[in-house]
């Protein structure tokens, strides 16, 4: 499982890295970073606790969206490594014109994708307590 996972993860690494970089650059220019430095916080604390935590929100969004691409990419990776996964099943069902299985697999993947996006929305609230859902 190591190589398939690595093959999928590598493309994600690049995307997350670039998003984190641009997000960090933006956050590091905010006034509260200067405040944190002025009150004498150590540099690692400033970068990790004050900057990174605020910079993570767009990163989490991107990871959520990328998850969809990973599900697509795993179809290819499963094919290459011969793994009997969901993508493998979907593809075989298409080759065999087994439409009920195709429908089931696609609906399941969509449901999973929606769930991931729900989790992403909930993570926003953890990262930034100002974001609250429900009757406020």
């Amino acid at each position: 499982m190591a190589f398939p996972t690595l093959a999928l993860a590598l493309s994600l690494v690049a995307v997350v890295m670039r998003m984190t970089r641009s997000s960090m650059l933006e956050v590091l220019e905010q006034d509260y970073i200067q405040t944190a430095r002025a009150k004498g916080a150590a540099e690692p604390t400033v970068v990790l606790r004050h900057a990174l935590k605020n910079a993570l929100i767009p990163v989490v969004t991107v990871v959520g969206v990328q998850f969809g691409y990973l599900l697509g990419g795993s179809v290819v990776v499963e094919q290459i490594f011969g793994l009997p996964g969901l993508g493998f099943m979907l593809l075989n069902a298409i080759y065999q014109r087994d439409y009920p299985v195709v429908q089931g697999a696609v609906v399941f993947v969509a449901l999973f994708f929606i769930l991931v996006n729900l989790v992403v929305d909930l993570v926003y609230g953890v990262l930034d307590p100002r974001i609250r859902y429900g009757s406020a």
Partner: protein
Amino acid sequence: MSTAGAALVVAFVVLAVLASVVAPHAPEDPVGQRLTAPQRAYPLGTDEFGRDILSRLIFGSRISLWVGVVAVAIGLVGGASVGLVSGYVGGRLDMFLMRVVDVMFSIPPIILAITLTGVLGPGLTNATVAIGLVYLPTFARVARGPVLAVVGREYVEAARAAGGGATRVLSLHVLPNVMAPLIVQTTLALSTAILAEATLSFLGLGIQPPEPSWGTMLGTGRKYMELAPWVAIFPGAAVMLLVLGFNLLGDGLRDVLDPRLRP
């Protein structure tokens, strides 16, 4: 960097246009021994049927670019029309169209393309249509946002008051505001569309042999990876270079046309 991207894209377009002049051999005929290593007569080697890989790659650029351009055109024209009308008319129609878009968004893009080609049947036209349909909701969303921002402006109201019909107001007064994000989205979509074509062909759902598609070459070349790695490596490198070209170009255009997103 964006100049390098543009140069890469232009180089591939020139290769595709001049394919029959530039390619040393015919792309679908065996011209030598099977699986010969790269040498002077076959600069990138030959594949499992003795066909010249360089020639197949050059002719394959036609297919990749054609599928990319046509699929993105389908997505752009269809999506932008939906987005423009949806944002302009508003109300229930907007509500309905955006929910349809939401549903299409809930299926991961490659999975949607695989399913659509699975249902339509494999082949060049069907793969192109399937990839185009996958891009439709993205373009609809990208177009709708700026429309909502300008639809209440005085100049749009003035154009309406002057007796301009919906078509006239949309094309002359609303569309120019939507152009910049649409152009950026188009170049970025081109790169993913080419990847999508390669993925579909790799899985055997796209272009069918013996046509020289990069994805098909990758998919069949994979079996000979240990014996003759050049059969799979060069098509992979071609896909990578073209996608890189469109990505660099798209990033550059985004920096110029959409300064808010500058990294």
